[in-house]
């Protein structure tokens, strides 16, 4: 266990950035999101939840897959180069790290998504324990401990200190690189903090949310429930929940005509959109109720059915905070709970 004064963090950032890209929560125009660290960046470790999850560090909102170029009637195809430089993501919360674990299940299983895999290989995750959990948090429901996140390095903010604990080889390598900035620390301080966090978490309004009835079996039992008809009504069919979610992984593939060629790129898609999975024959989900149901059934039933019971919700609560209609997965879970 090591520690560094929070006042010295800028030096730490600068050191990391000397040799690799550093992504961390940056405040810009009143909002905090993960962004590339630059000298004048306003780093914000106080905001618990960035608007977007940091998943776009590994799975960008939009990325080019390959480019086609036409000249003299011939077509050349240039694949986009894979990420080949190491980078660090600093300040990911426990839920966000679990979100990456969910994405791994999708993108790293066969067929492996090489773009994502390359980033995972080169990225080092420095997780930060949650100092002040929010009303909308319910990660513990999914067995996540916000006091002790996973990650290559785990850190805790205690008073004027950041405690630093490397967990993996990548984490040790990064720690070695930065070793002169740290001083040794006492683990007991961190243990106290963990206890404090866990105490708050118990008081959270959604702490005792029950997932009973969800999981693989829900695919059969809850698909045809009349509750969906009631629940979806306020949904505006926007993509806010999807785009702020740490685990939503759907994307669309599109072509952009640059005038001299075509860039094939993929970008996030939302199952809430009416043209989601639109194909030549039309759309397989024609009503908003179906689209709405899809999102929650995917997170709470289909995904666990295919992934050993792991839910693809991590309880970060971003959708709870951001839904324009105050509609969210908690209300969905509770609605079915009441019915049972």
């Amino acid at each position, binding site marked *: 266990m090591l520690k560094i004064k929070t006042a010295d963090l800028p030096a730490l950032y600068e050191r990391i950035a000397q040799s690799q890209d550093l992504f961390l929560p940056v405040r810009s125009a009143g909002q905090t999101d993960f962004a590339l660290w630059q000298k004048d960046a306003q780093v914000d470790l106080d905001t618990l939840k960035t608007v977007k999850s940091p998943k776009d560090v590994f799975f960008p909102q939009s990325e080019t897959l390959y480019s086609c170029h036409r000249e003299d009637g011939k077509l050349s195809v240039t694949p986009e180069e894979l990420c080949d430089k190491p980078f660090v993501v600093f300040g990911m919360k426990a839920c966000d790290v679990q979100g990456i674990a969910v994405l791994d299940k999708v993108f790293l299983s066969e067929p492996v998504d090489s773009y994502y895999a390359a980033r995972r290989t080169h990225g080092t995750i420095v997780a930060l324990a949650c100092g002040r959990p929010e009303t909308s948090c319910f990660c513990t429901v999914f067995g996540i401990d916000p006091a002790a996140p996973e990650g290559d390095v785990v850190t805790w903010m205690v008073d004027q200190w950041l405690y630093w604990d490397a967990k993996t080889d990548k984490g040790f390598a990064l720690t070695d690189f930065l070793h002169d900035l740290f001083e040794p620390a006492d683990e007991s301080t961190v243990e106290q903090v963990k206890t404090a966090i866990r105490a708050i978490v118990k008081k959270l309004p959604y702490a005792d949310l029950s997932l009973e009835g969800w999981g693989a079996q829900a695919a059969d039992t809850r698909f045809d429930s009349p509750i969906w008809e009631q629940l979806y009504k306020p949904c505006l069919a926007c993509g806010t929940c999807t785009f702020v979610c740490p685990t939503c992984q759907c994307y669309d593939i599109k072509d952009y005509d640059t*005038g*001299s060629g075509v860039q094939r790129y993929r970008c996030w898609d939302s199952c809430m959109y009416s043209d989601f999975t639109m194909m030549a024959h039309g759309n397989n989900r*024609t009503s908003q109720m179906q689209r709405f149901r899809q999102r929650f059934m995917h997170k709470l039933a289909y995904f666990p059915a295919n992934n050993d019971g792991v839910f693809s919700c991590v309880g970060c609560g971003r959708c709870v905070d951001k839904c324009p209609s105050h509609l969210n997965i908690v209300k969905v879970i509770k609605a079915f709970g009441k019915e049972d």
Partner: protein
Amino acid sequence: MQKIGVFVCHCGSNIAATVDVKKVAKMALKEPGVCHAEDYPYMCSEAGQSRIAAAIAEKGLTGIVVCSCSPRMHEATFRKAAERCGLNPYMVEIANLREHCSWIHKDMEEATEKAVILMRAAVAKVHLNTPLQAGESAVTKRALVIGGGIAGIQTAIDIADAGYKVDIVEKTPSIGGRMSQLDKTFPTLDCSACILTPKMVEAAAHENITIHTYSEVEKVSGFVGNFTVDIRKKARMVDMTKCTGCGVCQEKCPSRKTANEFNRGLNTRSAIYTPFAQAIPNVPVIDTESCIKFKTGKCGVCAAVCQAGAIDYKQQDEIITETYGAIVVATGFDTIKLDKYGEYAYGQSKDVITSLELERIMNAAGPTKGHLERLSDGKAPKEIVFIQCVGSRCSDDRGKPYCSKICCMYTAKHAMLIRDKYPDVNVTVFYIDVRTPGKNFDEFYRRAVEDYGVNYVKGQVGKVAPQPDGSLLVQGVDLLDNKQILKKADMVVLATAIEPNPDARKIATMLTASIDTNNFLTEAHPKLRPVESPTAGVFLSGVCQGPKDIPETVAQAGAAAVKVIGLLAKDKLKTNPCTAQADELLCNGCSTCANVCPYGAITYEVRLVNDHGIREERRVASVNSALCQGCGACTVACPSGAMDLQGFSNRQIIAEVDAICR
């Protein structure tokens, strides 16, 4: 994928001198879908067109791009050529390499580079062209003539004689127009009324002509072959079917102080009146603004004396709606107002008059019964000065920049008539130039000088000063003598500039016909289509198009009639297929498009729509392609992009933009 052929025209050396046409053709072959490209000296020639035909046949082209002159020149030519080979004419696009490229650039490299880009844009567009079929619309076999002067009458008679129905709409109570106000006509000096009245009678009696006098065009909608026109028939307060035209009402009318418009306000008339004796129809109207009955409610003399019981104070304006295949504008002219010409003392002295007022004075039915006398004191003038170009050829805002064309001749006529009838009267004409192109015109003017002793002075008049003794002191200049002239005159006559009827602009706007800065209606082509307006189905007759004398007016009236007859002779017209189309799946039914459509071509209907399996009743827009003229206003007003324009679709224009910007 289309198979596109690109044909690059040299236009002799017009294009080839500045654009490397071979390179344009070579570059065309690199464009996707282009499977044929060639250049040729004259693509529009018979031989050029047959090369296009051959390529279409050999290569099975589905679209062609001709890189040539402006599409306004030869688009129709190449479309017809394509059609003859079985290719839909709307699969042809033109890249304008002449007017927009070779003629304005000097540097070959630069011009060629631009030519290639213009070619690319046309190729990009033609990729998205779809075959379009021109629709057909029926032609209403009836014409409307707006204005009942000699131009309108002549046009109407000519059309009617060809067997088509014609309506004349005349604003004043009688047809006849300006010509009915004239005394004699140049260069023959025959009596205006004597030649006009038979025409008026002929029109009135013609079985194919309907005359709406005291009426105005209120609203025009529709398009060539199918105009719908609202005509306001102003209340005459006299029942046309009962009135016998006896005239007793006019004699007995106690209100006699209204300025007589027909006599240019030189005398007065009664409140119930016919403008002149030969008026057609010979049915009076009540001028409700002067009529005591209408002003105070107490009178009713006319109704009391009318034996036919034709007076009807309760008559209301009536709006009739008629449909026409063609519309002829014959709104004529007026003289300009002279309030900005203080130096001529018009309005200050009664003896300074306009030429048109002199016409009335000289006319036996005029305010002086044809006697030449001063309006101030009734005395016979001994010295008369004519001033030319009053308000004509002025580049300032007091007058008009054009030559009014008729003044030189009518002044010669007036001078001659006066000298003939009153040999003791001296006549002096101040002129800038004497313009007499026309058959027997210069001879006529020379007669005035040589045979009648009219004194022509080259120079202008600076000032007309009314003197205490009632005479007028005219200060002018004789430029040839280089002397200033001070001349005492008893009467001064101003050759006042003419301008289009003030209603012309209003009517042009209703017809969407274009109009120039002087309010003359614009012709479709100044040389080749002088009697047609650029708006299809609208024709021009008489002075509304530009200053003209009577023979020219009559000639143009006949020409306009021929154009109308040519149109009405067709049973169907091909309509422009480049019309708007609404995509029912995208349409919101919000009516925004209908709000901007100038033709009322968009209506809404509730229709059962199948939107990818969702069946529901929706309110959706529907375009009447016979009414749509293809402006595209709706396509931009539509927020969802449901409205698109065939031939100029969103994707076609975007493809051109992309091709140019790449």
